[in-house]
């Protein structure tokens, strides 16, 4: 496998369930294997996210096109790929009358770990996800949050290169959700695992993912590099001042920024890369203006998502850029 092998590669992928075509010829390349990055799969219910994941795992066969995961063809050579993948399904999936440690050990052995190593890793991973004290309890006695953690434990016990998480924060309380997101972040940053997260919770994706794909009606409608977005010049300031702001527009180029007045002391200012919000404070101070409100923000994933879904014509960042170019 070369160092630039995409985690997921789709070529005109079409999937039919019965007579209905669910995925309509998707083509894209997501992530790079071995980089420890997370790709988020977003979309409303029925967008085809789970179908895509099931196809990538080899559970559904494409009706046309090709899907590759870690360079392996999903329809032909999944046997090789599956040792390198961990999967956490969306729904409850466990063996009720087994203890957590026996369950995770069995899953590790099925992934190819020798029995002793599997036992050791099962203990380690259960402590890691916070189930250390409950590891000898039968899984059917677990709460929903504990079952989610047990599912995560079985997905990572064998140290996979890629972990596929389907709605990992489903049904979790805020504390458990935070813990789950922290674990996912650690999987990337400390273990170097690639992660594919399928969720309809934008904040979760925004928090843990480096790349996001938005799906709608079986097609990809937006593909963005969140890391790039975070670094890019799409950062802008919403400013509200009192005083005579007639010279503010002319003064903005002093700090390399552009902006427009929206009337009544309200301004929308685009900050170029490298310019911090402090520069706005300084400029406004020099103009003897009183700041009533200053919001420094980027386009949120929610705004990007709403635009991709057709509910917004422009994200606020795009609107600022267009305004700045006037």
């Amino acid at each position, binding site marked *: 496998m070369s160092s630039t092998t995409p985690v997921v590669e789709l070529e005109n992928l079409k999937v039919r*369930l*019965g007579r209905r075509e669910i995925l309509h010829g998707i083509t894209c390349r997501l992530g790079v294997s071995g980089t420890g990055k997370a790709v988020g799969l977003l979309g409303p219910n029925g967008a085809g996210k789970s179908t895509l994941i099931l196809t990538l795992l080899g559970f559904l066969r494409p009706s046309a096109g090709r899907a590759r995961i870690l360079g392996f063809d999903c329809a032909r050579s999944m046997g090789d790929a599956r040792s390198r993948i961990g999967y956490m399904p969306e729904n409850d*999936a466990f063996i009720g009358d087994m203890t957590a440690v026996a369950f995770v050990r069995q899953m590790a052995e*099925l992934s190819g770990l020798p029995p002793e190593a599997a036992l050791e890793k099962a*203990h380690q991973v259960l402590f890691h996800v916070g189930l250390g004290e409950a590891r000898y309890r039968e899984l059917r006695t677990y709460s929903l949050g504990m079952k989610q953690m047990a599912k995560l434990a079985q997905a990572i016990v064998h140290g996979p290169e890629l972990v596929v998480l389907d709605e990992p924060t489903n049904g979790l309380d805020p504390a458990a959700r935070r813990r789950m997101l922290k674990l996912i972040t650690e999987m990337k940053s400390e273990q170097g695992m690639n992660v594919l997260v399928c969720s309809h919770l934008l904040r979760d994706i925004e928090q843990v993912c480096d790349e996001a794909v938005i799906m709608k009606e079986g097609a990809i409608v937006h593909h963005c590099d969140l890391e790039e977005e975070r670094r890019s010049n799409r950062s802008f300031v919403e400013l509200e001042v009192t005083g005579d702001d007639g010279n503010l527009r002319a003064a903005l180029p002093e700090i390399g920024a552009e902006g427009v007045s929206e009337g009544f002391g309200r301004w929308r200012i685009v900050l170029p890369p490298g310019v911090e919000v402090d520069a706005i404070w300084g400029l406004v101070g020099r103009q003897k203006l009183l700041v009533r409100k200053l919001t420094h923000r980027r386009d949120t994933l929610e705004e990007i998502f709403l635009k991709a879904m057709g509910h917004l014509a422009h994200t606020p960042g795009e609107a600022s850029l267009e305004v700045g170019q006037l």
Partner: protein
Amino acid sequence: MAVYKRGYRRYTGPLTGRWTRFLVLPRYAWRRIYQQRLVLLLTMVAFVWPILCAGFIYLTNHVELLQGLDREFREFIQVDGRFFSIFMYVQAGFAVFLAALAGPGLIAPDLANNALPLYFSRPLTRWSYALARLLVLVGMLSVVTWIPGLILFWLQVGLAGGEWFQANWTLGAGMVAGFLVWLLILSLVAMASSAYVKWRVVAAAVSLAFFFILSGVAEMIDNVLRVRWGHIIDPAWAVNQVWRALLGVTPVEGPGAVASAWALAAMVLLLVVVIERKLRPVEVVS
């Protein structure tokens, strides 16, 4: 260092052979099955008849102990095909009940708990999963069927000598083959009922009912249509006919061993199709 202090690190060591990994499932399943007291008890009870048979073999090979007995009776108690067929009927009965007890716990919980996607997202195919589940039952039932049967056979060889072996080796081979056919049918029936019925008790009842209902239907066909071929759909009757052919015992009236073997093969095929349709990681509703 204690496990909880070590922290989690990705496993990077050697992996086990890909083609033997499915054997993990039977190992765990046997451990769970023998934790059921009823299974353990029935398994122990199933050893009573082989022990009695061992005593019988000992007696028939010690003429001095039979001196006082009638000559006709002494000729009657021989270790031959008839002896092994009687041994097989009794043990086959125990096997039916053991399969009904242990079988439903194999696939039904995996389906009820949606565990199949977890298995199939690993290097385990549907066929290797099915084979692993089949091995659980065949392995467990072997303990009370052909293994004690083979021990009895070698006990007889040990007591009667090489000449008896040369003349009767087909009995040993026939018994093992006959039992394996029966275990295959029993296991597939138990797996199929386990795959379709989520409740263990009901699945056990279904797997027992399969044999009784087919036997009843076969009897009905024979009586209503005044024929003898109706029994071919009764797996117990068909396997009995095959056993008789393998052990050289006079067949019962009705379709022959070859026709019975074909009927059993068709049944196996049907059961495999039934199981194959159910063992899917995701169910697609057209």
